[in-house]
């Protein structure tokens, strides 16, 4: 299914991410960077999201993943943070924890800020995915 559960393009959780038409984009000339943001949450206020590996214990993580390591963009070129200001200190390639539970409702959605630093030059690079852990949605 093209709609990605729990991933939205807007803070109000009205524009669900559709991986048949949507991408997490950034545009930057070589040597500079560009930032973007997406949101993880559920618009169902009565529900919550937890990591399916160990609900309520394990953190829900977003991790940069390279489908083509050794060329093009590397995961170390991608930083993640919970705020745009946090991107400066973030470590390239490191996973970002969204916490052990994300409560429902747009007000509890977690903003995931990403920054791509262009260290490779002019082209279009699509081998990086930002992987959101497997999760379960249950009544809060």
């Amino acid at each position, binding site marked *: 299914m093209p709609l990605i559960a729990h991933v939205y393009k807007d803070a109000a959780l*009205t524009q669900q991410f559709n991986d048949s038409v949507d991408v997490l984009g950034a545009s930057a*000339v*070589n040597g500079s960077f560009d930032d973007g943001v997406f949101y993880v949450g559920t618009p169902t206020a009565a529900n919550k999201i937890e990591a399916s590996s160990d609900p309520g214990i394990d953190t829900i993580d977003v991790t940069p993943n390279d489908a083509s390591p050794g060329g093009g963009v590397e995961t170390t070129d991608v930083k993640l943070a919970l705020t745009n200001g946090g991107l400066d200190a973030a470590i390239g390639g490191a996973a970002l924890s969204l916490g052990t539970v994300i409560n429902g409702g747009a007000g509890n959605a977690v903003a995931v800020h990403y920054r791509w630093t262009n260290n490779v*030059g002019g082209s279009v690079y699509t081998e990086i995915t930002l992987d959101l*852990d*497997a999760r379960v949605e249950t009544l809060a």
Partner: protein
Amino acid sequence: MSWVSEVTALNPKLWFRHGEASGDEAAEVGGVTLTYSNGPTYGEPGAVGDADTAMAFTDPQFGQSTADHTLWDAGVFAYTVCSWVKCTSTATEIVYRHGGVSGQINITTSFSTVSMFYDLGLSFGSLATPNTFNFADGDWHFIATVRDGSALSIYIDGAVAATGSGAADPMYTGTGTSNVAGGFGVGPWFEGSIDETVIFDKALTVSELDTLYASISPAPTADALPTSFSGQASWPLAPLPTQFKTSTPSSLSAIPTSFQGTLAVGVSPIPMLLNDQDAPSTMLPTSFSGSKSYGLAALPTQFSTDTAYTVAKLPTQFQGPDPNDYEAGDSKWSLVVSLGAGVELSKLVDSVTIETAENESAICTVVFVPPDGVIDPSTFENQLLSVNYLGIDGAGNPTYAVRRFTGITQTAVYDPDDGTMTVDATTDLQGQLENTTREVIQSIIPGSTWSPHIFDDTNDGYQYALDLLSTVPKEIHVTTWGTMVSVDFGAKSTPDITLTDSNRFNNSLTVDRASRRDLLSQYTINFDFRFSRLRHREISVQFPDSYGFCHYLNNNWQLPSKDMVASAADSTAWSRVTEITYIELPEPGVYCTPQRGWVGGAEDFCLGAYWGAARRFAQTVTEQYTLTVKSPDLEANVGRQDINADYGVEATFDSTDFENVTDFDAAPAGFVVSPKSGDYQKEATDAEFDGRAAMEEAQQIAIAVGEVEILKRARTNTVTVECVYNPSMTLEKTVLIDTPHLTAQGKVKRIRETLSPVAGALEMVVELGLSRHNGSGGVTPTPQDPPAKPDQPQEDVSDRTYYIPYRIGGLPGALPEQDDWDGYFTNVQESLAFPGAATYDQKFVVRMPAISEESRNAQVSLAEQVYEIDVPEDILILRY
């Protein structure tokens, strides 16, 4: 049938057997030669059971084609890549790759997972299996990755291990190198053994892959399945509690009677408890060995309300525009305008215009020829519209792309004269904000603050956002990717883009300096805070025995009864907080001079009395603050240009509840005696909504509003330039314009761009906002702390003892009674009355002291508090 015959029958596109003894390897099929580097090991025992050998690799050994070659013909929408591997490394590494940065395909593996990736230029597809496998077991494993249009699948040892979807565009027809085990970029490379890498330009079926897998010699075997085991394997899907019951088996073969644990059935290991009902009492095996491949199994299930979701692999598209290309005089470009679900508009007939500005919706207009057939303009409305600028090479192949607009179409107008459709799209900033909750809007504008005492609580989302923006030096817009963001409106110290004369068109520089009236050097806030100060005043009431017992004996006036005193004491607005202490009459005896006999027996009467009383009242206090936010630099340059703003907060408290309480015998808990008033008191300013804390927060917000207003107006200097089209120009950028007659640096406020694919023309007009004060600078900003709470003014502390006099009629000098007299009124014995002296009716009148107006209302005006701000001085140098 052997492996070789089965592969041959399927007509591979490219086939490496990796069976060389040394040196280069010529492909069995496909006409490509691999050169091996860094000394991999030849002649390893092969995987398929014939005399052909395999190769073993450790980092950084690899194989690479001696020349670039095409892999796919035009119009190919499917492929299969398969190989036999024995992987020994935990890292994900390339088994086989073809292509460059664009247009590549690859199959990668670690010892626990297999993944695939294909890039088609502006789209791609990828898939990975769960990390549940173990290739580091010393055995050969058959891995295959299959693309069939948009459907993707990965097979391991002939069984489906993962399915997914990806881009459906045709395969890349350009050239690239083939790589085995690595050799692209900087590594890491594959570690383990590889045999029989085969590429097909079609999607092999499960049956065909099954046949390939089983065609090796000897046939592959699986480990004997345990008859009983417990535990839980890790898997990405949430383990689903299930219970299955089978019907009476129709076959006697290989149905376990009972086991529990996990059974790998391909995609997801699912914990199961199988109970076989009505099984025959004989003949069912309790154990079995062997293996059988299973496809996806639609198992009847019973689930709880939990909903599980697998790992979500969010695709990215990182675009790197090349300044060497777009700044070149002969740069070539193209446009991709997509409407709806990835539908590319192929017949653009006029310019695409895009206009973006701070705090405004971005607007994009596209004119195109719609598809043949009946036209319904409404189908082009409310659709996702995206515009990508492409840099292209001489052959027309895209070398990079840059997103310039993402929004929603609003109006579609069809022109029946020329058959064109004009579509207007917008990012609809205002609409998005109007439909967004306040808490979400506040998360988009970090650092902003809001108070119902400063702003209108009935404002909609858009106005609420503007209210928040008035407290921080930020602007809000929707990015070219369609995300709403807020960014500082001040210029960065280091510019993102530098424009020189070579980057702009002649005579296109315009400088508009802010006029005096545009600027603001001072923002004065008049802020009142009104609240109730609750007070508890205590007083000592004294009715002394002014004349003495002997005077009473000599004049024989009527004594006050205790009841009369008590009644009078309890008849005022003051509450008696102590018992009444009476001045008793003496015991029977002989008193005075001349001596008089006293027989006593007057216990119901007294010579005097004293008691304590208290009263509770609320004082209305108004604190008046004058908060002045100013820029000394601007004031020095343009003089005092100021505006005033008036705010007020009244702490709600129903003082009648306090004042109407009369039954008490002590001060209320928490009240403290004030040296300024002599009363127990407490300020009713604890209310969360409008207490002192809320008032101070509102003051801080008012100060912030003043600061931002000064900063915004200081930034009304603008420089406009028509520059060479720069696809990296956005509202987030700081631009330095460096020309012989002008040097200016500011943040982008507005961009208007026109892309004309028909005429091949590009236009871009950029407006920068520059903050200027033209002063000496170096101002140390004053912290936005609210002013300190003012001291309570000193009151004229009234006497806290109230004396009640005797008023005795008939004595010499007794005056006629006055209306405002208090006291105990009585008369001497009539026969002893002085002729002409006034006489009174017997009574006891208590007139407790009044509460002064000063204690009822107080107004405190504090000295002006000044907050200095440092206005940035952006570069603006005009020279000849």
